[in-house]
């Protein structure tokens, strides 16, 4: 951990570009997080709105299909009630089962909903029906009397466990123009509801209610939805006036989780885009800064080269007109000043050297003219100058003597001088070379 922290710290402190990239990435991350939060909230709202709209659309579609199916049933039974074969059967006691029975059974076999059709007399007694089950008995049906007296079709819901739509039409005998029987269609609502439900887009649960106490008539549940955890849309099933008393109402419910199913994907998408933006931003910041700092690096390299090569005649390249360019130009001016100072110094050195050469030449001439041997001894005891007389005195050339310790030529003298130095407390040592 410490190692990685150290590496990160070194990387962080190594370059302004690195620091700027981190700063940019941090900024972008903040912005992305903010945007993501906003997008999440907005997306959630939009998804809920969308789910609501979809539910409403599905409810409208379902209501329309259900309405069509109901009206088709109504149209069918109304048409049959007015069919001369049915009216004829009402008048034909002995033979009606032979032709109306197969006719009605054929209708049932073609029906998707196993609807039961029953022809009854005016007392509600079944005369012919199309189902193999026991004949229904409508003799005590509460609607029979009003149907027989008014001829107005009856539309009701019956049954609790398996609700059934009951459509009863008066069969009017030709020319009496009065009801003398009924044709009763009983359609199980559940399969009809399922048929209407088929093309729904949403994965909604649907329930059908009737007006009588809001009784649930049919339901199609894709899943169980806990109360309060779903979106619900209610809609009346628009039907013809004759069916209006049924008060059919649809309720479509979809779980919130289902409605927000796209939210996870959206969040992931936003996150991925944010991370990409973050990386891209950091890279752009890093690359941009890296490019901006390139003149600085050039200046640093120039400085290093000047230091190593001790050359001050290096030209600083043009670095633009920004702050770094200004710095480069200042560096260039500084180098010009250094070059000028060096030139002055070298001139002075040359003059001083010439003066020293002159002094030395005069000194050499003096030594050469002297008859006394002259030795100049440096502080370290080595012979620094050896005159001609000394050559002759000591029997060695100046070249041989210079640089050698004086002790080799004058050991006694040296011992004497050393003792004198000790006596006065001075540190005086002659070289042994």
């Amino acid at each position, binding site marked *: 951990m410490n190692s990685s922290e150290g590496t990160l710290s070194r990387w962080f402190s190594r370059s302004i570009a690195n620091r700027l990239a981190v700063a940019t990435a941090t900024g972008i991350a903040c912005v992305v997080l903010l945007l993501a939060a906003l997008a999440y909230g907005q997306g959630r709202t939009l998804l809920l709105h969308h789910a609501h709209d979809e539910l409403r659309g599905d409810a409208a579609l379902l209501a329309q299909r259900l309405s069509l199916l109901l009206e088709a049933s109504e149209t069918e039974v109304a048409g049959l009630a007015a069919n*001369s074969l049915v009216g*004829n059967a009402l*008048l034909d006691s002995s*033979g009606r089962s032979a032709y109306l029975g197969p006719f009605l059974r054929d209708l049932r076999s073609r029906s998707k909903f196993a609807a039961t059709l029953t022809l009854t007399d005016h*007392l509600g007694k079944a005369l012919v029906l199309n189902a193999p089950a026991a004949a229904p008995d409508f003799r005590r049906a509460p609607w029979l009397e009003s149907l027989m007296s008014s001829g107005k079709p009856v539309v009701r819901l019956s049954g609790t466990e398996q609700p059934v739509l009951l459509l009863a039409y008066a069969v009017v*005998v*030709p*020319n*009496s123009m*009065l009801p003398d029987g009924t044709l009763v269609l009983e359609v199980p609502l559940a399969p009809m509801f399922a048929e209407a439900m088929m093309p729904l887009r949403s994965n909604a649960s649907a329930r059908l209610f009737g007006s009588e106490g809001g009784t649930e008539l049919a339901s199609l549940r894709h899943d169980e939805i806990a109360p309060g955890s779903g979106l619900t849309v209610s809609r009346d099933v628009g039907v013809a006036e004759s069916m209006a008393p049924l008060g059919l109402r649809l309720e479509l419910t979809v779980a919130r989780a289902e409605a927000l199913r796209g939210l996870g994907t959206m969040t992931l998408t936003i996150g991925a885009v944010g991370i990409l933006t973050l990386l891209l931003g950091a890279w752009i910041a890093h690359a941009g800064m890296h490019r901006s700092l390139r003149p600085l690096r050039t200046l640093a390299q120039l400085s290093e080269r000047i230091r190593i090569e001790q050359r001050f005649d290096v030209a600083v390249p043009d670095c633009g007109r920004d702050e770094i360019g200004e710095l480069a130009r200042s560096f260039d001016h500084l180098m010009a000043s250094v070059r000028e100072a060096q030139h002055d110094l070298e001139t002075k050195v040359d003059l001083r050297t010439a003066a020293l050469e002159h002094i030395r030449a005069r000194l050499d001439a003096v030594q050469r003219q002297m008859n006394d041997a002259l030795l100049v001894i440096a502080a370290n005891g080595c012979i620094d100058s050896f005159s001609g007389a000394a050559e002759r005195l000591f029997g060695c050339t100046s070249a041989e003597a210079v640089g050698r310790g004086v002790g080799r030529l004058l050991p006694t003298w040296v011992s004497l001088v050393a003792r004198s130095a000790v006596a006065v407390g001075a540190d005086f040592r002659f070289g042994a070379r």
Partner: protein
Amino acid sequence: MLVGLDAEFGHATSTSAQAIEQGARIAIDEVNRAGGMLGGRQLALETRDNRGVPTRAVQNLRDLAANPDVVAVLTGKFSPAVLECVPVAQQLRLPLLATWSAADGIVDHRQAPSYVFRLSLRDDWAIEAMIRRARAIRARRIALLLPNTAWGRSSLAAAERHLRMPGSPKLAATGWYNWGDKTLLAQYQQARVAGAQALLLVANEVEGSILVNEMARLPATERLPVISHWGVTGGRFFAMASPAIRDVDFAVVQTYSFVEADDAVAQRVLAALRERYGIDDPRRVESPVGVAHAYDMVHLLAMAVNQAGSTDRPRVREALERLPGHQGLVRLYRPPFSAARHEALDAANVFLARYEADGALVRLDARR
């Protein structure tokens, strides 16, 4: 003492129930004026409307049977309604007096003792007369147009029997229709295409008038002679089929006509019709067979009650089987019924008639 009448009063275009009621009331008046029955008990008519619907007829019959004063019940035109009543009458042991319905099964029900007595036509006789008419007009191929009811099936059975006779025309086609159908043209054209030269029609006034009106719109060469069962005369057929009826050769089965009837009984009934119902011309008597049959049937019932000495229905039934001869309006009954025969008329009473311009039904063989 009551005699019930359950008939199709509520049928919008039917006149048969009203005709039966007229004949019955005239006879009841005569019986009551003659001192009544069983030592002076007056007879009255109790009517019910079945609209031609079998279940209503049964309900009415049960209602009437529940009244102990009802000694017997007259029935109306619609054979299916009467057929539905037969087993109920047998069960209730209530004499059922058919005065119009012609289905053979009404009397031929094979339940003994039978409580059903008919003073009317049988489909068998009607079809026989119709085929005879077809032969008379030299139709070698005929077609049948029948209602999809017991009446139609009864007529078909009769036709098949009679068409097996030597010299009978061939059956080219059989068409069926439902009561309440709005057109019969398809069946008619099918018969014509099949080569029929005459059409034997079994229909009431509604379908009969539809056919005649449709035929009249066809070219004259495409109109077949129509020989009709008498159902059409039980309603306002002439009005409904006019003026098309003038363009169609239309003959119809009948058992009685007041036109040219000059016997004492007819004069008495015509006087009563004039007095009671304002019908001052025998040509204006609507559904004459209903009037005549009901008139005779009520007289026969009165005779039976008197003979039985009781209104006990089984005894009245027995008395009906043992009645003496009686000169009625339609015929001389010698005797009307027996234990083996519950038909008061026979094939000899059947004739063909035609509508004249004023709507009067006149025998085809009437004096001109």
